[in-house]
């Protein structure tokens, strides 16, 4: 994005806030505070891009991913990098899937309604106004009638369905499962975005996970960040934070970061840590900060995200069209208590290197692998995004290896619990049936998990949580955390718009504004 004319602060000037990270958490905060006239500087570890710089090439697109090495362990170790972690101005939204289901009220209280997991300290009612504001600001397209919520309607019509969506619709109809176009932060109409300019309607490119080149997909660098810069915020790219200086009372006074090999120190009155479910806890653990509860790094969460694939008679060419254009929420809660909470199903188009790598990692090789890849252009997939409940065994810790700035690397141990296994089994069974009803041949399953959440849990009890209901640290009064690390449960809905909503709410708390009831 264009940063040439932005306002700049000197390091010795004490700004109102430094925001660490420019993804779904940091960007809306930056925008809100700047619009309120606060002096704010964002520090982003990755580079600044123009959307036109992106490429559909899956290998080159590694430049969008967080490729500082992470160590992955446990019974269901998670793949990082391209799977879930971004870098660059805009953070992971540069490569996100833009799938925007909304959480439901029950999702915030699995403990009190189902006796599992944890309740959020917030309710849907408290977040919904912010969710709606986010959807309106970034532009979410979707169906005029949403089957699972009477009255919910998306003003902008859905983007075109692709082949996997059509097959999923057919399979669901045959089985009596409701399905519709998925809500997506993809424009189906040209639109003027404040402080950015024209964002065109989607051109049906399927390579949005490699960076969307037109602006049709909402990313932070085409929405909240230009708005923030337009209101006087400063963004410093390639600035990796590795220290927080504090005074004798424990308040943070400055943020230390390395940019182009040189350490800098920005004075500030407050810090918003928005580095995501791995980098945020990693920084706090390295600095031994905000951890009187001993909860930093605990309750790591990743969505069960199994996929079912099949071959169809007609060419699907699933690199065309928005990749996840159909959704069903029929399994958001179990009809027979076969699992707690639940999952959604989405149709899937996946680029070839990504899919082939998943297949090979999943155990396929030799002629069997090549026989399948020979029919890649006839493939279509469906996948779940399911609830992940907090567990003691899932934890981010520090390894003994250190990175380029001297921070110890993260090790994440993750093992599906009983409920994640149940959700996966149930989802795979349903998806197999949908695919068979749709006419798929040679059906196969790819077990997966996705997203990085938890590790800096929000809650009302300072002894069991890292931040309070307003995302403020219990231990460090001017430290706020706002990203997916504060999630007490993963929730079924993909996390990005919830993070953005939390960010706007957190900014309003910081600004002392009245909050929605």
């Amino acid at each position, binding site marked *: 994005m264009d940063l040439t004319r932005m306002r700049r602060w000197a390091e010795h000037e004490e700004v109102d806030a430094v925001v660490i990270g420019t993804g779904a958490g940091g960007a809306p905060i930056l925008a809100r505070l700047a619009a309120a006239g606060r002096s704010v500087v964002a520090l982003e570890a990755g580079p600044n891009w123009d959307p036109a710089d992106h490429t559909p090439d899956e290998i080159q697109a590694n430049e969008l991913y967080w490729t500082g090495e992470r160590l992955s362990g446990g019974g269901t170790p998670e793949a990082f990098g391209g799977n879930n972690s971004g870098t660059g101005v805009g953070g992971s939204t540069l490569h996100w899937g833009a799938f925007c289901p909304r959480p439901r009220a029950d999702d915030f209280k699995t403990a009190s309604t189902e006796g599992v997991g944890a309740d959020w300290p917030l309710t849907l009612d408290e977040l919904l106004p912010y969710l709606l504001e986010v959807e309106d600001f970034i532009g979410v397209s979707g169906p005029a009638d949403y089957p699972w919520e009477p009255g919910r309607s998306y003003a902008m019509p859905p983007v075109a369905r692709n082949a996997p969506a059509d097959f999923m619709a057919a399979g669901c109809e045959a089985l009596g499962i409701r399905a519709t176009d998925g809500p997506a932060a993809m424009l189906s109409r040209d639109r003027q975005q404040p402080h950015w300019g024209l964002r065109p309607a989607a051109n049906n490119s399927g*390579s949005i996970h490699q960076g969307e080149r037109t602006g049709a997909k909402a990313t932070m660098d085409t929405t909240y960040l230009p708005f923030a810069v337009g209101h006087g915020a400063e963004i410093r790219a390639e600035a990796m934070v590795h220290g927080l200086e504090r005074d004798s009372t424990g308040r943070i006074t400055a943020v230390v970061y390395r940019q182009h090999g040189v350490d800098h120190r920005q004075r500030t009155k407050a810090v918003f840590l928005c580095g995501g479910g791995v980098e945020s806890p990693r920084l706090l653990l390295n600095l031994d900060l905000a951890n009187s509860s001993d909860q930093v790094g605990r309750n790591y969460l990743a969505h069960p995200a199994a996929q079912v694939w099949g071959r169809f008679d007609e060419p699907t060419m699933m690199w065309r069209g928005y990749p996840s254009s159909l959704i069903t929420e029929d399994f958001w809660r179990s009809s027979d208590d076969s699992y707690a909470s639940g999952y959604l199903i989405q149709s899937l188009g996946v680029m070839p290197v990504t899919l082939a790598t998943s297949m090979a990692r999943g155990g396929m090789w*030799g002629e069997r692998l090549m026989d399948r890849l020979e029919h890649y252009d006839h493939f279509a997939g469906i996948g779940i995004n399911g609830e992940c409940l907090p567990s003691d065994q899932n934890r981010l810790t520090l390894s003994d290896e250190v990175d380029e700035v001297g921070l110890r690397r993260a090790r994440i141990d993750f093992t599906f619990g009983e409920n994640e296994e149940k959700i996966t089994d149930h989802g795979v069974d349903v998806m197999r049936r949908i695919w068979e009803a749709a006419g798929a041949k040679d059906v196969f399953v790819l077990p997966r998990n996705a997203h990085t959440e938890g590790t800096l849990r929000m809650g009302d009890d300072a002894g069991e949580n890292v931040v309070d209901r307003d995302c403020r640290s219990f231990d460090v009064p001017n430290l706020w955390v706002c990203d997916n690390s504060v999630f007490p449960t993963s929730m079924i809905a993909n996390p990005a718009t919830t993070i953005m909503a939390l960010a706007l709410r957190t900014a309003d708390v910081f600004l002392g504004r009245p909050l929605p009831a």
Partner: protein
Amino acid sequence: MSEPIPAAPVVVLLHALGLSSRSWDGVVDALGDPFDCVAIDLPGYGDAAGSDRLTVEQSALVVAERLRALQPDRWLIAGHSMGGKVAAVVTAWAEAGEQGLIAPDGLVLVDASPPSPEPMSEQRRAGMEDWAEDGPVSPAQAERFVDQNAPHALPALRETAVADVQRAAPTAWLQWLERGSLEDWTDAVGVLRTPAVIVASDPGGDLGPAAQRRLTLPHVPGATVQEVDGAGHFVVLEQPQAVADAIAGLWQRVSGPRALPAAFARLIASDRVSAKTRAVMLARLDGPGDAPRALDDAQRDLLTALLARIIPQRGTDLDLAGRIDSQLAAGNDDGWRFGDLPPDVQAWRAGLDTVAAVAPGLADLPAEEQDAWITRFSDGEAGSDEPGLLDGRRMGLWFEDVRGEGVRVWLSHPAAQAWIRYDGFADGGDGERKQGYLRTRAGEREPWQRDWRTGAAR
């Protein structure tokens, strides 16, 4: 089924200063039917004497336009003297998929003016400039020019050459002598990957064998240098058969399957693909070469054997082990690793050493037995507790990395993408609006989409 090999490649022929397409008549006759010869009048010469597109770049653009109109699936380009410099520029563009061109199958440089400033004595240059200072080259000077450069020219070719020199535009003549021949195109041409032959007349002149080895060969390091004994600089007028033999011999050598199917290469070169995407895709046509390595010879050979079973390539024959090795040496990182494995280079060395220790001679076993070992390793059922080696559980994790990396490196190659009929990289070029796709549903196709494996309609 792969792309059919056409019997008749297009041969683009670019002439020397003062001459025209007709200077190739003898070569064209000698080449005969299997070749579809397209001799071009460069701007300012022959029938194009009226053109004002006289710079080296504009001349190359004219050739590119002609090629775009012809759309040859298989083609060679030959350049004589001045035309050699233009041919090198066109080849460099085509290798990079620029100007909508696909890479030629071969390049023939005949007493070529090199991409660097051409060595020519100032006295001779000034003398030749004088000839055209006041208008077209006179009949007497034209005869002298042709006879000096081709003392043994075949009579018919001499006659047309003398006539062509007289009808050359004086501005074109001066443009080459004062500007074009002195322009430095060495960086723009770079090192070409196209198979090439250098034809050098011996004794020749300023552009004879010694100059070709010094100035042209660095741009086509794999080229053979064929010296034509007793020939002058205008060798095409004297010994057309020798030049034709060089062209035909090169085609004989390169007429096997192309690195990329032509239709697919043309798609990469099209305006549906961004310059950045095109560059990263075509860069992968180069193998690991002598890039730094992380594995020793035994480890690399063993990895080659394992990958032949794990990723039995279709449509390609890539050195996957070499590519992975050079990536390991370069420290390319995908952002994570199994926490129970050591860092990548150590893990790959240890994994391969473990295979060698636990399954000695694996590469020489029958395929089924190799596969049985791969299954055992993948399932975590074979490993070693010796120091520096990986136990069974870790071998299971490392084999997952081998499968994943192997298929990732294979499928990132454009030829593999053509084989799976993928065109998702062609979702829009560098225009204000990216083209994307209009059709997204099963069975529907865009008019431009092909079965990229064969180039046939979908």
